[in-house]
């Protein structure tokens, strides 16, 4: 059990190494739009500017809702990333590795688990940005949608990967891509 807690701690350290950016971003977004580079980025890149211009809708009309949507999206992704990362880290201790080289077989399990994680991330992004659940999602343009989806996948996968690479049980490291390259005393 101590090993599991240790794994989870390592995993949290790994998650924190990148996760602080996400936490900061989410906090800023919950605070709402202000006179910042992030607001400018949303106004210039994320929103469907041409259509809003046709309807003569000022960005300030949509900024609050859009920031709130993005904050909720990031919070959801942060939670799922942390849960999945910790889940694998804890679960790796229960992998039955009873012969040399068997850990490598569990690579398939890791790949499937990671695939599920990526699918969930993608699903969450689509749910927030393309379903009709959130009205403000209509203000996100095609480019904005691509950027949000791409960045979310890259960022949260990296966060998850760093989390699991550090958190996976030492005897099961061969099942995680490049995890066996870590120093043995970590």
């Amino acid at each position, binding site marked *: 059990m101590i090993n599991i807690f240790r794994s989870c701690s390592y995993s949290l350290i790994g998650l924190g190494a990148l996760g602080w950016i996400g936490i900061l971003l989410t906090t800023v977004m919950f605070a709402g739009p202000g006179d910042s580079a992030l607001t400018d980025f949303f106004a210039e890149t994320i929103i469907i500017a041409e259509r809003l211009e*046709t*309807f*003569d*809708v000022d960005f300030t*009309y949509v900024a609050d809702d859009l920031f709130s949507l993005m904050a909720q999206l990031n919070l959801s992704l942060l939670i799922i990333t942390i849960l999945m990362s910790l889940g694998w880290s804890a679960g790796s201790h229960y992998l039955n590795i009873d012969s040399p080289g068997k850990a490598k077989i569990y690579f398939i399990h890791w790949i499937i688990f990671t695939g599920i994680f990526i699918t969930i991330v993608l699903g969450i992004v689509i749910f927030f940005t393309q379903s*009709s659940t959130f*009205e403000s999602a*209509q*203000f996100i343009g095609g480019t904005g949608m691509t950027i949000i989806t791409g960045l979310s996948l890259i960022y949260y996968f990296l966060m998850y990967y760093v989390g699991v690479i550090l958190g996976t049980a030492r005897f099961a490291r061969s099942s995680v891509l490049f995890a066996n390259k870590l120093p043995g005393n970590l």
Partner: protein
Amino acid sequence: MLNNRFLGFIGVFLTITLISNFTVAKEKCSPEYSLPEAQINSSQENSDDANPVFVYFDGSLSMKGFVVDQPGQKNLYVSIIDDLQQIAENVGSKTYYHKFGSKVAPIKENEIAMVIKEGFYTCAGNVQECDNQHTAIDLPFKAAKANLDATYIITTDLFLENNQLVGSTLSALTKPLKSVLKKGKSIGVFGIMSSFNGKIWGIPTSTGATMPYRAALTRPFYIIVIGDQKNINQVRKNLEEQHFIDGDEAYKYALITSSPVSQNLNQAKILKESSIGALSKKDGFKFEYLDNDLALYQFMTTKKRKIEIKIKKSDFIVNGSSGVSSYRIEETLWWNEEKKCRNIKEPWKKTNHEKISSYKEKDEFLYLNAFKHAPLKTFFSKFRYFYLINLYADQTGKASETIFADWSIRDSDAEDFTNQNPKVFKTLNLTKFIKILNSVANDTFEPRLIASIAMDFEVGKK
């Protein structure tokens, strides 16, 4: 004591409820807009029955053949001219008769019977005086300009040479017509195929000279009526009832007018809730005419819906007229971030759409394709919208040209056509003449408001 207090409380409660309900009902849930004034068809407004009628009979030699019976052919000219006196009297109070050819001369009432005799078309004077092969159609048209309240009935074969339809002769024809049409008057052209037994004079040849033709058994003559639409319709009604009731006679009619729009659909309350199609069956749909006659549709719609307003053309186009060839849509779209009427405090914002809707014509209907250029899928469900469309008639139609096309022969084709020895002779430059009338009508035409329609709506998320 308690009872009185209780009743007092109930009274106050009911009063407040009633006042608040009244306030809600009177809530203004639309942006500030102004409606263009709907013009009334002035030609239909003139109800002065005391207008004189001037009847002009073409006395040119080519008309003579209409009064000579052709065995086996029905002589409509004689029977119609016989009735024309009575038809003219039905239309106006006093009737004046004239004969025209190269000049106009008045004829007495007791001489009218002569019109259906050969002698009316025969000239007893010298050669110069008897140049009666020419039809100076511009002369009665000029006269029509003099008294714009009168009705003018011109009977002619409309056999017009090319040189009568160019230059100064053309302007002598078009100028008075412009004045007449500008005053809201119309021109009714009745074409009647009748028996013919005589010579047709003045057929142009390739050498520049003219030739006569006498083998025709039938040819059309025309009754041109200039005046109020109601008087023209009266003449039409009388002619049709008395002579064309079977509908088998070769009879054509066209109304050339600068006001082909008979009525404003809002004032006549022609637009109905069903005009918008299946959308009217949806929950929350409401249709009403506002105090300013604006037809207002209120609804909730999905982003996928296509909205079309179906209008029957005969509801606004003058019967028998050349109609409308193009329409203009003036439109404005507003949005408000508050969907609930009572919460609307901020002013409505106007969108920057250049084009939102379009129209198409199919059979007897005009379809207003709302949001054709700005589909509902591009609308944001977050807002409430108010859309105002003013539909105008922008240009008069050209239907009359096609109506008479098969009775017309071009100047350049006249000789070849004559050489084929036709039994049914066509009218020289008839299409050209109708085109000229249409172009004059179009010049004097002013865009006319057909309908003003508003849509107060919300768009669903899907």
